[in-house]
């Protein structure tokens, strides 16, 4: 994965987490797999509404829905969360690379300038 794709994925995980309902769903799944019905129980909202939240979490790669016929329990996939909790570690190489480029651009600019000054 390139650094930029990495950044795009992180942004998606951040967006998925920026919602209290979805955070609660994740917290429930942290205790173990659960069906959509079980996940919907504590919420005062329709099953389709809860399903939509689950879909957002699935898209961000945080939730995996099992293939076991009727139940299809949801499971937490914590790997994107590790990326978020290691946020700094992911962004650091992006910034290091940028600052390397700034450094060489600065040297290039200044050597052109000094060449321009000498007759």
């Amino acid at each position: 994965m390139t650094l930029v794709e990495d950044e795009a994925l992180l942004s998606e995980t951040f967006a998925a987490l920026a919602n209290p309902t979805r955070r609660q769903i994740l917290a429930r799944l942290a205790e173990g797999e659960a069906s959509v019905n079980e996940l919907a129980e504590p919420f005062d909202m329709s099953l389709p509404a809860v399903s939509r939240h689950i879909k957002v979490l699935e898209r961000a790669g945080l939730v995996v829905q099992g293939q076991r016929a009727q139940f299809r329990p949801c499971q937490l996939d914590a790997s994107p969360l590790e990326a978020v909790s290691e946020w700094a570690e992911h962004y650091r190489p992006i910034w290091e690379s940028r600052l390397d480029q700034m450094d060489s651009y600065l040297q290039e600019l200044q050597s052109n300038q000094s060449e321009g000054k000498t007759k």
Partner: protein
Amino acid sequence: MTAGTPETKDVVIERTLDAPIALVWQMWTDPEHFKAWYGPMGAAIPVASIDATVGGTRLVCMEMQTPDGTMQMWFTGEHREVVENQRLVYTESMCDPEGNILSPEEMGMPEGHPGITEVVVELREVDGKTKLTLTHVGVPADSPGATGWTMALDKLETHLATS
């Protein structure tokens, strides 16, 4: 969970650049200079518009080649602190090409907040060189939802650490 202010997960990088402080300042505030260095490896910056005044906006397009064609990502933000040759603070969010921050609805969410991060650039002259300290803050302390966020992450991290 730790007491007091939650541990922030910021990127902090220090660099000493062999260049005058005013030139390093321009690296961040002059769009032509900014375009020349900002793209991470493999990305180009076709658009950069920077109004370096407090409350002024930034709009940056990052473009890269992928097997599926050219992919563009747009970022916008607002300058929060502008002290020439010393300190620059701006926010950063993903947006559309017109600079509209992608709303939760557009990202397929009925409610919530888009991710906003904050970049802090501090410059200091040291023996004719410029010391640059870059801080990229993941969740600005005063951003909406920051508290819920930090708590949720703490909780999930505890879970990850024990599983």
